[in-house]
């Protein structure tokens, strides 16, 4: 990758570069003309395989990048508005809404940057979805949402937007460490009949084309992500499942311990990139 970037630069200097360059675009993402997001920075020192980290935004076409830069154009923001209505909706035996305890959604500022995190009381690694369901079941006495229910994914988007522009900063030490190590092992394990690991595509070949797809680093700082492909918001675990399936492997379930561990490890590879809230991708 890095060598190829130099080669491309040299060709550009000589005026020999072809019309297509597959490298990530070193452009600035400024949302609504005011909030500049970090989409490219130095890799955390505990990630051996990368020197630099790039948001998936830098690998998308100019038109797709432009959609994310304006909330009026970003279809993901419609789902955030839906979640705002749900935030204020009283549900369950306790007669409460999210707002009853938390007030304005802006009280969630910073929450997304540290997810997933080890929850002392539960003695387990919790994603944002687990915190939301804990509130629903134990405080609201309402029914838990499914991991990929529309209301759940939209609510994670509303909460993510509150941290827009803040750097991802998940903890990987202390009680989180065994989860992180399990996630790292999964990242480098070649699964399925195609025998592909996450690293094969997203560490060794980011920036390269695989048929018509431009491989990114598989960063999750922009999630939940609006995909042009299915015209809705997509959760991190749903995306993981799609990727594992594409190696012709038996997938894990969204919300499974395996995907929690993988989420922590992949999130840690993006520590330093901004929470995008909400990204737009293919």
């Amino acid at each position, binding site marked *: 990758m890095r060598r190829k970037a130099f080669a491309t630069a040299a060709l550009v200097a000589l005026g020999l570069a072809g019309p297509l360059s*597959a490298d990530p675009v070193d452009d600035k993402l400024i949302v609504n003309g005011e909030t500049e997001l970090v989409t490219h920075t130095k890799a955390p020192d505990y990630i*051996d*395989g990368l020197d630099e980290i790039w948001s998936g935004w830098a690998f998308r076409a100019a038109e797709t990048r432009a959609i994310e830069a304006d909330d009026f154009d970003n279809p993901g923001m419609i789902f955030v508005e839906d979640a705002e209505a749900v935030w204020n909706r009283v549900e369950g035996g306790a007669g409460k809404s999210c707002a009853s305890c938390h007030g304005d959604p802006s009280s969630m500022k910073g929450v997304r940057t540290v997810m997933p995190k080890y929850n002392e009381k539960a003695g387990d690694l919790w994603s944002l979805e687990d915190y939301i369901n804990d509130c629903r079941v134990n405080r609201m006495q309402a029914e838990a949402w499914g991991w990929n229910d529309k209301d759940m994914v939209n609510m994670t988007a509303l909460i993510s937007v509150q941290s827009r522009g803040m750097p991802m900063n998940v903890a990987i030490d202390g009680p989180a460490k065994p989860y992180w190590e*399990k996630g*790292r*092992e*999964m*990242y*480098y*394990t*070649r*699964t*399925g*009949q*195609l*025998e*592909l*690991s996450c*690293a*094969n595509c997203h*560490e*060794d*070949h980011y920036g*390269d*084309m*695989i*048929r*018509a797809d431009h491989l990114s680093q598989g960063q999750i700082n922009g999630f939940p992500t609006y995909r042009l492909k299915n015209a809705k918001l997509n959760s991190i675990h749903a995306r993981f*499942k799609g990727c*594992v*399936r*594409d*190696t*012709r*492997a*038996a*997938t894990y379930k969204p919300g499974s311990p*395996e995907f929690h561990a993988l989420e922590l490890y992949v999130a840690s590879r993006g520590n330093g990139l901004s929470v995008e809230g909400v990204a737009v991708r293919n």
Partner: protein
Amino acid sequence: MKSRALWGIALAVGMAGAAGAAERGPVTYAADINFAEDGSVAESLTGKPGNPENGAQVLAQKKIGNCIACHQVTALKDYPFHGEIGPSLDGVGSRYSEAQLRGILVDAKKTFEGSMMPSFFKTGGFIRPGIGFTGKPAKEPLPPLLTAEQIEDAVAFLMTLKDE
């Protein structure tokens, strides 16, 4: 190739059963294969020559080999979107023998250790194999990614890709 050493570590850890995710059965192929030391396979898998026209389809079609997902091939420029994961296959028939190309298609990892290339005739020894692209668990042996005939056809096509 940055992470080849890391795969080694990951696989070693996995095989120790840390997550139970990396259990796997013995490596098997859709037929008995005699690999030479260098990973090449001298004997035809079908006992007869392949058809290069059909082989071009094996390389180009998404539902068959989809080789151009990763490799650029000028002779197949009418089919859109050639990838850049592996090397260009232009002139590959001058660089390798038929036996070497067959070996690479059957199981590239025998020729290039740690290669990202799938093993197209392998039927067992996978981690968490699934049924096609359904995400559901599969029982080994799996049908190979390509049949013996398709591999021979692809080899015949690749042998036509000579340096100018």
